[in-house]
């Protein structure tokens, strides 16, 4: 009797403690959420001013360098004109860096609209566009059947664009480039890969593949800002997916990504594969 009453008191104590803990946690979540919202707003304001305020001076650098070439080109010798061209090339490059950095930050804050995705049609559309942009090159695409996915159409399309554009870019030393695209269902995921026979990379640097502005090739070998794979990774993380790559110098690269398997119901509502 006495000990039962003590048990009740003990239990009451524990319950109170749990309740206090729960309230405390809830308060903390609210506080953190509010802080995050403020941080997000600040980030938005920041990227707005990046897009606006950093581009304007670049346009002046490039525009007025051009004015010197057009207006005073006859007073300059070849070396003078070359140096002005260096100024212009770098203004352009910085413009590209700003654009890509913004695209990267935008991928982090954009709302995701999930829907069933016909990956076969999507990847063919992307390949057609890239082929049209590189019409002078011989590129052979091999399309294996791809499982249907569930994701944000424009974001997942961006992943394909970035992976395929890389495959096209890094295989340009080949007289005929071969790019294979495939997919599978494995352990609760849908997986996809893009395999090329291009310049490849040293696996020693594999951890740098997905860093912002990280590049494994020199600018005079392959142009680029080093943001494409970082954007792809960010998109996949936002979908609870992942991306990884393997390669070998001069023997091509394979990039793979995985998305959570769509549930049976979603599969059905997505129509036939």
């Amino acid at each position, binding site marked *: 009797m006495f000990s039962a009453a003590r048990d009740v008191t003990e239990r009451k104590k524990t319950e109170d403690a749990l309740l206090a803990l729960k309230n405390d946690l809830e308060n903390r979540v609210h506080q953190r959420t509010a802080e995050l919202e403020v941080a997000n707003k600040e980030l938005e304001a920041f990227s*707005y001013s990046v*897009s606006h305020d950093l581009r*304007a001076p*670049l*346009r002046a650098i*490039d525009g*007025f360098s051009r*004015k010197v070439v057009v207006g005073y080109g006859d007073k300059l010798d070849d070396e003078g004109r070359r140096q002005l061209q260096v100024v*212009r090339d770098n203004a352009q490059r910085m413009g590209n860096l700003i654009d890509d950095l913004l695209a990267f930050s935008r991928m982090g804050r954009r709302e995701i609209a999930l829907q069933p995705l016909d990956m076969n049609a999507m990847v063919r559309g992307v390949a057609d566009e890239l082929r049209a942009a590189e019409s002078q090159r011989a590129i052979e695409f091999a399309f294996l059947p791809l499982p249907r996915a569930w994701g944000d159409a424009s974001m997942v399309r961006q992943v394909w664009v970035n992976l395929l554009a890389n495959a096209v870019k890094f295989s340009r030393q080949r007289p005929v480039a071969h790019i294979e695209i495939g997919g599978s269902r494995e352990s609760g995921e849908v997986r996809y890969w893009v395999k090329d026979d291009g310049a490849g990379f040293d696996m020693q640097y594999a951890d740098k593949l997905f860093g912002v502005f990280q590049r494994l090739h020199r600018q005079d070998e392959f142009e680029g800002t080093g943001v494409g794979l970082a954007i792809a990774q960010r998109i996949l993380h936002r979908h609870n997916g992942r991306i990884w790559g393997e390669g070998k110098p001069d023997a091509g690269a394979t990039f793979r990504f995985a998305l959570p398997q769509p549930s049976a119901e979603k599969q059905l509502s997505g129509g036939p594969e």
Partner: protein
Amino acid sequence: MNAVDQELQILLVEDNPDDAELTMDALRASGLVNKAQWVKDGAEALDVLFGNGAAAECHRLRLILLDLRLPRVDGVEVLRAVRADERTRRLPVVVLTSSREESDVVRTYDLGVNSYLVKPVESEEFMKVVGELGLYWMLLNKLPGETR
């Protein structure tokens, strides 16, 4: 063309003097510069448009090139005022800005902008964009009352 050739027809609203110079260069290359007037902010733009009663220039204009981020009265305010005034509510307004923010695109379209262009950083591209848009709006585009 005709006698109104030398008249003011394009109003460039741009606070950055370097951008304004490059824009006027591009209009010059398209033979449109003597129809253009440059004002440095939104308040000045509203002065030119509606300012002095009878001397208001708005009836002569065929196009406003509008930057968005401006001191005093910003571009969105200018657009709103232009759309709210009976005399200018159909006047073509083209936003020419550095901003690629979706919110700016949506906001200005909601207010009835006719076109939204992001200023290219690369200067040949900039010349081309401004030159072509000038020619399009001045020569190809028809305003209400011009199709008869």
